[in-house]
């Protein structure tokens, strides 16, 4: 087992881990960005009840919500290069980070689409009717009237998804990406001060998620008070 507990290592590792926050946040941000786009595309056939596509998006959501993200990560990491080989793309040398971002993006896309659908459904039907009544077209009504209102309801869910995504990044080490958890494990093994390393790791995650949550809460409050104009 490891060396005797020495609190000074906790602090030392904490400092050493700080620069790695950047990589973790990069994964979160890219995954959320991809997730928003994918989520929107997946939600559309459901909202507009498009026959076949609706079924496809249901299966998509069911799969990504129905399997552990770790398994999804392995599936893409090992499976995608083989798939791409079929269309003569060589992905074998791509950095693991690409696979991580892609998996996390697709994963959060499933949750985002549920969020978008629920938020849009929460907007009162009378709002759309009123928009039609003043002569707006369907897309106009959607973009100008429905979306801004849906945004306010979606925001708390969106915050939760960001925090969940941050915590999920801790699994990226399993395909060799040196984000916070990967880095901490390396430090731990090298020095044999395992527990100290993992305490600083937990502390860093806690601080990052705490700060993110506070910022998102502020944003929610602003949007609730003054609407989208405050952005």
């Amino acid at each position, binding site marked *: *087992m*490891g060396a005797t*507990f020495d609190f000074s290592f906790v602090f030392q590792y904490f400092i050493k881990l700080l620069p790695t926050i950047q990589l973790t946040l990069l994964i979160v941000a890219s995954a959320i960005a991809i997730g928003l786009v994918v989520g929107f595309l997946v939600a559309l056939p459901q909202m507009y009840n498009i026959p076949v596509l609706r079924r496809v998006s249901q299966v998509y959501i*069911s*799969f990504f*919500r*129905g*399997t*552990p*993200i*770790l*398994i*999804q990560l*392995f*599936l893409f990491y*090992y*499976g995608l290069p*083989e798939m791409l080989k079929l269309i003569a793309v060589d992905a074998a040398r791509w950095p693991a980070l690409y696979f991580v971002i892609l998996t996390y993006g697709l994963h959060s896309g499933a949750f985002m689409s549920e969020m978008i659908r629920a938020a849009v459904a929460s907007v009162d039907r009378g709002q759309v009717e009123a928009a039609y009544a003043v002569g707006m077209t369907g897309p106009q009504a959607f973009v100008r009237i429905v979306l801004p209102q849906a945004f306010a309801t979606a925001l708390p869910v969106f915050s939760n998804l960001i*925090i969940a995504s*941050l*915590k*999920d*990044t*801790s*699994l990226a080490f399993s395909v060799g990406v040196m984000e916070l*958890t990967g880095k901490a*494990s390396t430090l*731990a093994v090298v020095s044999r001060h*395992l*527990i100290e390393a*993992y*305490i600083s*790791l*937990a502390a860093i*995650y*806690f601080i990052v*998620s*705490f700060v993110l*949550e506070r910022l998102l809460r502020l944003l929610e409050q602003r949007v609730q008070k003054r609407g989208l104009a405050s952005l």
Partner: protein
Amino acid sequence: MKLDVSFIWTAFVELLDAIPVTLAITAVSVLCGFLIGTAVALARQFRVPVLSQAGAAYVTFIRGTPMITHLLLIYFGMPMLLDAAAEALGFGFRSASIPMIVFAFLSFSITAGAYASEVVRSGLLAVDRGQLEAAYSIGMTGPQALLRIVLPQAFAASLPNISNMLIGMLHGSSLAFTVSVVEINAKAQIVATTNWKFFEAYLAAALIYWGLTIGIERLSALAEKRFKAYSRGGVS
């Protein structure tokens, strides 16, 4: 290397052995989680001094950190504490004799407890205050009112959240491979590396998790129908 469809089936069959381990981790962590969570939620609801603050801190910490950090801290921290304690007290006990799966049970229960406390709390909030008053007015004691009136309604209101938590812990159990517990994910890794067929093995694992998840969703829909029979009417 091409996709070997028949190997997906082979892997699938091999992975079936690991399902009980996954289910055991899920069941133990959710059950213990609910015991912890109910205690924490009640302590916070009734503002029990010290316990309610400690509960709040516990929930905030667990929810603010990834599940894998809980597992790593327990896995590496517990033996250290236990051995130190055993040595100080002169017991012959050594942490090496603890089976790996115990660390998974312990750590995941602690994780689940924090999430369960939020589930219980929102369930309690969903019960109208008038229900408690009515219970008191017919002469029930506090514990009677809680057990017979509030908790059953809170439970029915929480069913969707409970199902989500079950699914969350089922998926979370895939982390147990980091402490060498052979559940579905770890088994998939073994099958994958021994046959050098990663994609097929993980595809089989994904199918199993997917099936289990759909099973939980179906069961919870059934339970909801059964336990929420009382709200079927539209008149109020």
